[in-house]
């Protein structure tokens, strides 16, 4: 129908349509969402493995007897993990503001909140490394150690990815300014961060509160 010899009789001109739309209208938002669905399923599998290992071990977590100090009820410590949880939850505030500023194309606000978000992100990464100690086990001690390290590690990878995205955003905005496309990308990145924080609330409850209170 579009070959040379048949000329279309009627046309619909779309040249006046906008070139960026936010949220569910945009393909990239959908791509990001599918990615998050995949990651959520991965965490779902890890949670299933966690419970499966729970049923295999009794008591759970198993007493730590092969290393000093011996701990008979090695439920994970709560101090650093809770601080990290608070850090992550508070980081939502600059991130929401970043989201709003990007929508308003407010370049100055975007710059400020990008840096603040990155700072929170890096703080979370550093705290995460201390968090591993509060588990009392190493990954190769037993299956409990393996699964908790893996859950924390998987989440740590997401924190790293976010840090890279933030750094990229900062470099771009400071070098090239805030164009429409970049503003939109920042809103999508914000969705990713909401997910990273949201999934951590559940994982925190599972890994740290679960053995203590269930």
């Amino acid at each position, binding site marked *: *129908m*579009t*070959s*040379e010899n048949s*000329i*279309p*009789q*009627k*046309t*619909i*001109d*779309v*040249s*006046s*349509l*906008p*070139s*960026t*739309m936010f949220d*569910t*209208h*945009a*393909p*990239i938002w*959908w*791509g990001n969402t*599918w*990615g998050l*669905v*995949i*990651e959520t*399923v*991965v965490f*779902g*599998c*890890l949670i*299933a*493995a966690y419970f*499966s*290992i729970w*049923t*295999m*071990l009794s008591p759970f977590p*198993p007493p730590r007897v092969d290393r000093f100090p011996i701990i008979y009820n090695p439920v994970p410590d709560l101090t650093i993990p809770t601080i990290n949880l608070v850090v992550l939850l508070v980081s939502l505030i600059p991130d929401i503001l970043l989201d709003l500023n990007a929508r308003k194309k407010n370049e100055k606000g975007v710059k400020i909140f990008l840096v603040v978000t990155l700072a929170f992100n890096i703080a979370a990464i550093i705290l995460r490394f201390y968090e591993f100690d509060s588990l009392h086990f190493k*990954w*190769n*001690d*037993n*299956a*409990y*150690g*393996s*699964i908790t*390290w*893996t859950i924390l590690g998987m989440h740590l990878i997401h924190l790293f990815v976010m840090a*890279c995205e933030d750094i*990229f955003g900062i470099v*771009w905005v400071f070098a090239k300014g805030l164009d429409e496309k970049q503003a939109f990308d920042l809103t999508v990145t914000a969705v990713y961060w909401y997910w990273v924080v949201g999934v951590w609330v559940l994982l925190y409850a599972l890994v740290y509160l679960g053995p203590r209170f269930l």
Partner: protein
Amino acid sequence: MAENEQKPKEEKDEKQSPILTPETIEHERRELEKTWFEPRGVIGWLSNTNHKTIGLRIICTAFVFFGLGGILALLMRIQLAFPENNFLGPDLYNQFFTTHGSTMMFLFAVPVMEGMGIYLVPLMVGTRNVAFPRLNAFGYFVYLIGGILLYAGLILNIGPDTGWFSYVPLAGPEFSPGKRVDVWSQMITLTEIAALVGAVEILTTVFKQRAPGMSLNRIPLFVWAMVVTSFMVIFAMPAVMTSSSMLSMDRLTNVSTHFFNQAEGGDPILYQHLFWFFGHPEVYIIFIPATGFISMILVTFTRRKTFGYTALVLSMIATGFIGFGVWVHHMFTTPLPQLGQGIFTAASMMIVIPNGVQIFCWLAMLWSGKWNLKTPLVFVLGFFAIFIIGGLTGVMLASVPLDLQLHDTFFVVAHLHYVLIGGAVFPLFGAIYYWFPKWTGRMLSEKAGIINFWLLFIGFNLVFFPMHILGLNGMTRRVYTYIPETGWGELNFLATVGAFIIGVSVLSFIGNVLYSLKNGLVAGDNPWGADTLEWATSSPPPAYNFQYIPIVQGRHAIWERTEDAPVITGLNVKKREALATTIHDAAPEHKYELQSDSIYPFLLALATGGTFIGVIFHPIAIPIGGVLSVLALFGWFWSNSLAHIRSTHEEVEKDPQNPEPSLKPVEAKI
């Protein structure tokens, strides 16, 4: 369902622009040709992001792996032809059957379906390219690296030898020394990344880039099939990635976790659950696209509209859902509670219902249509004859008591080949005969096609029908030999003969393809008189697919098109722009620019693949690979799309060669 009178309302709001003149058409065509010019040279080849090129690459690569897997199967059949045969020995045999199974599942069946989807879906929904062209290229390279890893392993004597399921503890660190299983698990992770990437592409493309007017109830059935498949991929593949990563971590140097170590609280059955939570949906991930092929082929070759469109769509969705609830029927012989067995029996039998609905709808189409009995339709008829046997033996396997006898015997081997070859490979061959003219502009030979079909049909039944009886006679799976007292020799010999007939049939297919590429009849735009949008453009389609995005007025876009239907103008021809439409009604919403060609997807794939392969040998690969991957990603997002297009424009202008394909102007008579 009233699909004809509903047109998106937004269309009327758009201003009607003046009628196009031949000059503007020609001018815009030249501009599009420049904008969408496919880069040349080695770097160009590696950075091409056109969905048709990538799709064909995936399909060709998958067929190469199909051939390799088939050669392994032939060697295995020679080993089993006689009792106490010494052709391969257990070590090679175990490597071969593992590689055969893994190849056919991970390197052939899933990728070839994804490849068909990546080629056809953007054409069928009427858009210029997939939503994330660079991601698409990345997916292909990751898949290729995974496949090369498996076969390099096999050549270097590190071929995996624990079966395509790699159950622990056999595949665990203690009983599989060396790197063999590591190669397997990294191959799995790489190919699953590729599959996930393809699924994200297809879902986003279908959700946001359909041609105006293609509301949800007008989407072609193959596109629906790919949507359901992609959903299943997104929910199933992460499970196998998790289990294969856990297996790697259990095995790898300096990691040595205890996920599957019973003594330290791990659970070998956890692996089976995770694996089969993926492993059963995998079957439908392979089968549902094939049902899409069948629905498309039947419409074209019975010359009638789809019978039971809604029922077919719903039954595909139902299959997708129930497919996740049946995985335990692979584990009926493990210690499981009775209640669980009952539930999974019921679910496994329930999945017959949607498949039954599909088959009955197709039979109704065949009953009421006018048959244009060409090779694609012949392959679909072969599908009926074979797949239904596989489906019925599947019902037998769903029953717990029968499964206790049949599980892990050659009966299961027969069943799964009847389902996968009958259910996926026959429709796939039909689909290739159907769409080959679209890909290449030339028809495949009909005569060779019929020969191909009969050889495949006879050979297939000769190989796999006796296996039912062998299984009932007690022959278990994955045995490298058997003693003469068992009396399995004759039927096994018969099966080996059949395997060679299949080999000849595949050779005839390859011959047909190679011959027809140069000498086939020239196909016009629409040689089969088909109904969907991909036949509305030239064969092979231009890089930009459609010069003007068409408006869809019915389920059968070409058949139901009125004479005065409008087309879309106003997309920027100097940019790689696509039209985004609303999810439900596919009304035009906004335009947006697709990413341009880039070498970075290839570099990222190299970095990712290098990390996964390197970590088998040394943990240092993780930090190095991680940094390289991040660098590649920075390059990926940083590289300006416009700069690249400008350079290709110049390249085209310098290039005296006319990029237009020169075909003889003779139309084939079908």
